[in-house]
């Protein structure tokens, strides 16, 4: 099921434009930060809309507070890669679904220790493709450098990678068949790249569904019967 896990729909009255474009491109759903009422919504056309929460704010305490608040309300919870303390803490917290690259500086790329922790927790690395579309020449080569290094670090640690459009306009969305070719630019082989587009989002969503259920405490620990 090809799903774009990060589409930046600016307002709810533009939602139909994005849904239409997603359908034409062959996507079966996408995640957006808009408030949709429930974590997962299905439109009349069969498109799956997912609520996404991006944890913003600086410092570990701020991230912890927000995470506790948004987990059950969002289908996708993403924490931006920031300083090593916050990144490593998020990589160990099973409530998180994605660690996202949002800044292209050296301090905000994924470290080997973070990738190993995230691989154990089942958290994927999110690579936004919008910066590749917005830049060209030398500027794009700098983006490619960060992305290629991050993909290599995540892959060698066994961490899943997911490619998201981060599109702020419908025309900036990309078809799954186009996205996996972009994955090849990031150093993935064909099979790995196809997997990041067609299988990894599905795995993240089914894991997220279990995390949201009221019986789930942490992966592997669930309440099966409460004592009276």
């Amino acid at each position, binding site marked *: 099921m090809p799903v774009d896990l990060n589409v930046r729909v600016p307002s709810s009255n533009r939602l139909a434009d994005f849904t239409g*474009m997603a359908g*034409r*491109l*062959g996507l079966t759903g996408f995640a957006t930060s808009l408030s949709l009422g429930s974590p997962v919504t299905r439109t009349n056309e069969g498109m799956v809309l997912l609520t996404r929460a991006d944890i913003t704010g600086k410092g570990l305490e701020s991230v912890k507070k927000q995470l506790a608040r948004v987990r059950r309300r969002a289908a996708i919870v993403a924490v931006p890669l920031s300083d090593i303390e916050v990144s490593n803490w998020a990589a160990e917290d099973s409530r998180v679904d994605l660690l996202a690259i949002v800044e292209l500086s050296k301090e905000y790329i994924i470290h080997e220790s973070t990738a190993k922790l995230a691989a154990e927790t089942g958290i994927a690395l999110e690579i936004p493709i919008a910066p*590749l*579309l*917005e830049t*060209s*020449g030398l500027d*794009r080569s700098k983006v490619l450098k960060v992305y290629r290094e991050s993909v290599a670090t995540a892959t060698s640690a066994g961490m899943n990678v997911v490619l998201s459009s981060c599109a702020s*306009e*419908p*025309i*900036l*969305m*990309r*078809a799954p*068949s*186009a*996205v996996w*070719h*972009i994955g*090849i*630019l990031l150093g993935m082989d*064909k099979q790995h790249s196809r997997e990041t587009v067609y299988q990894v989002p599905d795995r993240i969503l089914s894991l997220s569904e279990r995390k949201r259920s009221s019986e789930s405490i942490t992966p592997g620990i669930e309440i099966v019967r409460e004592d009276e």
Partner: protein
Amino acid sequence: MRRMRRRYVLFHLHRDGPLINVYQLSAAIRKSFLSLFGEVSVADSRLFIGQYDTDEGTGILQCNAESLDKLLASAALITSIEGTKVSFQPRRASGTLKGLTR
């Protein structure tokens, strides 16, 4: 000289703006490919676009088999052609033209 293996790709160019003709599209893909992979790769690619429907935005891209993935990645990164915003979608690839219509 070894015979070159070709690949054919059915594609759809989604657009938001005025129509784009085949020469503009072909030049945009070559330019993106040149920027990402260099002159030698463009020379080896043997890119050709046929059966392009300007209104629908559909057509068939032909190229050297070895260049296919790089060419499609280059096309996927194109955001606008002559001021028209675009999104390139490869639909199906085949080793023969007949294979695309099956």
